[in-house]
């Protein structure tokens, strides 16, 4: 078993990992930048090491500093959490070379899934449905037209070097494609230094449905059901739920089996997530795999009763999974609201010091938080404050409990997106489960100002 785990992260996920380690009776080492001296994760760890100044490159993204901290302070394993170095193959490799157990998948799993075109080709070969389109970028508009003719309009043009929802354009006819291709190419070259464009089938009002995978080092791979993450703002998830309000048991089994097949195809180990888009006809397409624990893992824990973070730690330690797929049962409904420090009107980040803090509690309410009274939300990092999860026997009960919880949540000193969540939780379309990845746009009628876009970018680390 592991002897001491260094947690190469901060905020709520660092606290979450500490809880899992404590339950397994493994001591923890927190790392922190000088901006996080008073942070909750630093207070709650068994040991703590300052790894650098506030700038992430010199602290939370500083591979030598983190590996050295693990070695010097006697850790034998490193948990990367999400964001930061969690999907960095070099970091996983540096850990392994230094004799540290990296709590995550194999280095090659990380590298493969980080290379989106290659991941797409591997999945296609394994029989996993992917969105029809090119699997390599092109700068030739005729090639784009040929592909479009084959898969049918509308199509999506994607800057090969883009990401996080940037560099996307829709074309609904050959004429439109001809008109925008050159622009997209130039923009891509200007913004990302690469003008290559992918052509992909464009789905109208798709849903984002993802499956939680757990795999050990003994070829056991299983899924823990789906999460519906269609409530997004510029490709950033805001509110997630499990189960999806529309998936039938049969669809769940079918998509779950494909997700397991996808993970098996690459010899995946540890926890991970297969993300699909689901169209209105019930077709689903692989988009990507996240090779780490997800922000929204908690809702799956609520409906399955399985501690996903513990499962990842045990899998990394070489333990076989204690379950088969048939042991995984689902009960009730869970919703997660991501509480972020932002001005609900302008959607700009709202860093500051938390005062007058009261987190909600009571029946069916779970709070995973990285803060307490007097905690600072620094300007340097993403603005996630906490995650509130409401569990109920039904979706209605979960929504009702979430409303009560958010209406009593008190955070002064910073602004949060709680008002937006309360607005969603009272919206007729959300209540009927009629959501898709563009659902949230209607709440966001204001023109997108430049600073708001950079706020969204800051959230990327937390996806």
């Amino acid at each position: 078993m592991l002897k001491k785990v260094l947690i190469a992260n901060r905020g709520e996920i660092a606290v979450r990992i500490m809880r899992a380690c404590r339950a397994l009776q493994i001591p923890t080492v927190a790392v922190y930048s000088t901006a996080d001296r008073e942070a909750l994760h630093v207070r709650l760890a068994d040991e703590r090491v300052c790894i650098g100044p506030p700038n992430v490159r010199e602290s939370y993204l500083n591979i030598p500093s983190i590996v050295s901290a693990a070695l010097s302070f006697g850790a034998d394993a490193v948990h990367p959490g999400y964001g930061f170095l969690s999907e960095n193959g070099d970091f996983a490799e540096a850990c392994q070379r230094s004799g540290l157990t990296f709590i995550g998948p194999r280095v090659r799993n990380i590298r493969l899934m980080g290379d989106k075109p290659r991941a797409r080709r591997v999945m296609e070969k394994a029989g996993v449905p992917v969105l029809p389109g090119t699997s390599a970028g092109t700068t030739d508009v005729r090639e784009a037209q040929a592909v479009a003719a084959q898969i049918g309009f509308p199509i999506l043009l994607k800057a090969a070097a883009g990401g996080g929802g940037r560099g996307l354009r829709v074309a609904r006819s050959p004429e439109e494609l001809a008109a925008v291709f050159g622009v997209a190419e130039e923009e891509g070259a200007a913004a990302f230094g690469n003008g290559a464009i992918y052509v992909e089938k464009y789905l109208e009002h798709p849903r984002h449905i993802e499956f939680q995978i757990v795999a050990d080092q003994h070829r056991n791979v299983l899924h823990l059901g789906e999460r519906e993450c269609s409530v997004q703002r510029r490709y950033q998830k805001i509110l997630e739920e499990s189960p999806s309000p529309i998936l039938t048991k049969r669809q769940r089994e079918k998509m779950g089996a494909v997700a397991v097949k996808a993970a098996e195809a690459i010899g995946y180990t540890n926890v991970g997530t297969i993300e699909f888009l689901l169209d209105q006809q019930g077709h689903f397409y692989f988009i990507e795999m996240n090779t780490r624990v997800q922000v929204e893992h908690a809702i799956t824990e609520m409906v399955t009763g399985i501690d996903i973070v513990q499962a990842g730690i045990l899998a990394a330690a070489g333990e076989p999974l204690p379950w088969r797929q048939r042991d995984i049962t689902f009960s009730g409904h869970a919703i997660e609201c991501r509480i972020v420090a932002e001005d609900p009107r302008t959607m700009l980040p709202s860093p500051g010091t938390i005062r007058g803090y009261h987190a909600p509690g009571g029946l069916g309410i779970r709070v995973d938080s990285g803060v307490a009274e007097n905690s600072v939300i620094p300007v340097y990092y993403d603005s996630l404050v906490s995650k509130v999860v409401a569990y109920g026997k039904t979706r209605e009960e979960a929504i009702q409990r979430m409303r009560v919880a958010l209406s009593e949540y008190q955070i002064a000193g910073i602004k949060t997106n709680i008002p937006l969540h309360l607005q969603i939780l009272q919206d007729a379309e959300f209540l009927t489960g009629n959501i898709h990845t563009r659902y949230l746009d209607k709440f966001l009628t204001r023109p997108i100002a430049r600073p708001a876009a950079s706020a969204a970018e800051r959230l990327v680390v937390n996806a």
Partner: protein
Amino acid sequence: MEIDDIKKLMELMEEKGVIELEIKSASSEVRLVRAHHQAVAAPPPVGITVASTIPALLPPHEGNPPPQSSDPALDPALARGVAIPSPMVGTFYRTPTPDAKPYVDVGSVVEIGDVVCIVEAMKMMNEIQSEVRGRVLKIMMDNGKAVEYGQPLFLLEPLE
């Protein structure tokens, strides 16, 4: 107003939760401002923090062990000192090789650019150079111990 009065005022401020105080009279003016909230859940103070182990099942608020280094503020001789902080996380060595003599000792005079110790990080032996000229007043860490970013390694009395 005497020092004792001011001390009393400070104590009263702390006790009563007062964070600012100004008194002006014909003969004197006093202004006191307290940092707020630091008393609660005291963070590791800058520079003298060390990783500390808390028994897994004891609530952390039951008492963080005090910092291992002695507080220079308590020793007037040390109060003049300037610290050389560790520029990285790693293991602190006072000697270039296990059998060699230490780079510096208490009383040594160090020039700018002199190597004062090694911090091993990821199997790399990093020579740490002094950025000040001075006399070593105190060695803040034991040989072979893990050090954090920013942790004071030596205390120097600056020399012109």
